[in-house]
């Protein structure tokens, strides 16, 4: 049990190197990537029952130096659930976008793509597990380069522009993160999270170095906010997520932005302590930005005529929900935010995979107006899109409904604003998702012969859409079980 996180990180690392050597066998590389991802998901899944029974956390020392100097991994129930979810989502996103990978990426570069995907997985795992703030910085950079890489791999003018925008926004954020680590190190003298938080507790109790601490907290919030597309910093997201190939879009919106949010949660709760953050007033800011994001993201999405950009803007709104949940600042709010994060991690890749399928059968046009009747030509994509849309709008029995209920219940003193914003945002979601869902199922009047193109969905595409949809409905019906586990999980923060 102690070794699983380390083994899964190393496994992804070795896999990414081996994938580079498989230049002539892209299919083998892709198969190996999938096997490794399934293995990581299964191993992390094995930890869940163990931690449910025994509770607590395990600290794993790397190298031969003990606590105040060495490097550590720390994990418990929450980390196990998140690692399992992330690996599963990346795996399903790969099999859901296989057609896209074949079409968008030159076959000589497909192995590099696999390598990038595994690097991304590795950095996400490291961000989840690490107990050392500087290690987190290093893996943030690996994550940034890998995620820019998976956007860039579909080589076209628009991905180039999107990648450059994404890269420079991310690098600015990394710079802010690095200087805030330097500030924190200079006032606390530690890099490991437990020692650092002890030192910060002393400092806040004695009232010294309040300004450097506050500056560091603000800069970390801004930097991780930029990387996870918090509302005013979301400008890179629609371009990067909509121009990339289907698998990349799914992974970027499903898991990559979540990795940074989890790091931010860890820094709030484990480094500063939530009371210190509350005292600085940052929680109100995060809550307000979340609420504004919820509404503005949906308004931007309504104006979009391009299906993938519409789904991408919807991510801005969904990330707003997550930040609003965090901004409530209670355990209930936090576990509702984490629950919404997991729902979104399963829903957004479903929508992107379906959109990929719909685009394939609509003459490769991303415009919504060209999609009439597309669902009749690719039924799995049509079903997936409807389920995803229902979940995002918040129709009962689908995942999104359950998480919105939990978010609304967690509101406490902020609850009236929160519930109003949730209701407004859900209506806005319905305004842009439902017309599309209707349009793709409406028969084209002029040419009923278009059905001759037939049902092109390959078997693994159906598996991916089927799994995502099933998980969505399962979480919608049995979400309280996961919320129970998450409420247990957040206790270890």
């Amino acid at each position, binding site marked *: 049990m102690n070794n699983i996180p380390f083994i899964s990180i190393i496994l992804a690392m070795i896999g990414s190197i081996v994938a580079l050597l498989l230049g002539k066998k892209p299919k083998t590389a892709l198969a190996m990537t999938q096997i490794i991802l399934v293995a990581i998901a299964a191993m992390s899944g094995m930890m869940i029952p163990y931690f449910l029974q025994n509770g607590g956390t395990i600290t794993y020392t790397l190298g031969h130096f003990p606590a105040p100097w060495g490097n550590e991994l720390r994990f418990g129930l929450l980390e196990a659930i998140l690692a399992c979810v992330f690996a599963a989502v990346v795996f399903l996103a790969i099999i859901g976008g296989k057609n896209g990978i074949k079409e968008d990426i030159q076959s000589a570069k497909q192995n590099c793509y696999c390598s990038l995907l595994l690097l991304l997985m590795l950095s996400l795992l490291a961000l989840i597990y690490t107990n050392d703030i*500087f290690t987190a*910085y*290093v893996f943030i*950079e690996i994550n*940034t*380069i890998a995620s*820019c*890489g998976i956007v*860039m791999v579909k080589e076209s*003018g628009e991905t*180039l*522009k999107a*990648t*450059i925008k994404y*890269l*420079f926004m991310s*690098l*600015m954020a*990394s*710079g*802010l993160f*690095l*200087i805030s680590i*330097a500030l924190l*190190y*200079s006032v606390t003298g530690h*890099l490991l999270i437990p020692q650092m938080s002890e030192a910060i507790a002393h400092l806040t109790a004695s009232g010294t170095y309040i300004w450097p601490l506050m500056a560091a907290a603000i800069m970390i919030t801004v930097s991780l906010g930029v990387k996870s597309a918090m509302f005013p910093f979301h400008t890179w997201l629609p371009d990067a997520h909509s121009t990339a190939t289907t698998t990349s879009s799914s992974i970027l919106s499903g898991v990559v932005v979540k990795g940074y949010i989890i790091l931010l949660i860890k820094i709030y709760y484990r480094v500063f302590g939530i009371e210190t953050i509350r005292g600085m007033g940052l929680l109100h800011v995060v809550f307000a930005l979340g609420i504004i994001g919820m509404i503005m993201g949906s308004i931007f999405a309504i104006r979009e005529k391009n299906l993938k950009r519409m789904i991408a803007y919807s991510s801005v709104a969904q990330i707003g929900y997550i930040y609003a949940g965090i901004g409530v600042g209670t355990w209930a709010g936090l576990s509702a935010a984490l629950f919404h994060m997991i729902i979104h991690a399963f829903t957004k890749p479903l929508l992107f995979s379906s959109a990929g399928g719909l685009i394939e059968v609509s003459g490769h046009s991303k415009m919504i107006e060209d999609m009439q009747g597309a669902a009749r030509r690719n039924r799995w994509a049509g079903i997936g899109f409807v389920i995803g849309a229902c979940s995002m709008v918040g129709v009962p029995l689908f995942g999104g409904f359950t998480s919105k209920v939990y978010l609304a219940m967690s509101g406490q003193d902020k609850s009236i604003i929160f519930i109003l914003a949730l209701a407004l945002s859900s209506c806005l979601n319905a305004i842009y998702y439902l017309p599309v869902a209707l349009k793709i199922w409406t028969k084209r009047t002029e040419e009923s012969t278009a059905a001759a193109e037939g049902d092109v969905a390959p078997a693994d595409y159906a598996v991916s859409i089927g799994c995502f949809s099933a998980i969505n409905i399962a979480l919608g019906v049995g979400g309280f079980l996961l919320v129970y586990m998450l409420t247990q999980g957040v206790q270890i923060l």
Partner: protein
Amino acid sequence: MNLFNNYYELAAVILFAIGLLLLLLQRNLIKKIIGLNIMDTSVFLFLAAKGYIAGAMSPIIRDGQTDASLYINPLPSGLVLTGIVVAVSTTAFALALALRWYQQYHTLDIDGVVLKNVLKGEK
């Protein structure tokens, strides 16, 4: 004033601000990348200044003296080293993208007048 005694930190923060503004406001990709490097280097200056103790030796045990107070703090140097590796790799990636951009549009300008003229010319 405390500020003037900590002139290394002051210089680092000023450099960081210069780098950040270059990265945000410049339209030329190479200037953006230079800004990125100034920003990263300013953090290295900050860390190196934090690790330095006046009059102490570099952290390699000399003449069997193991008293920690004789040496400077080695950890920030290690962080700077890691940071340099990270900065080099991100710079290399950014430069590769800039090269690709130049090959495609024959300008390094990313959203200004020059690019618009190039795009108009293509149409």
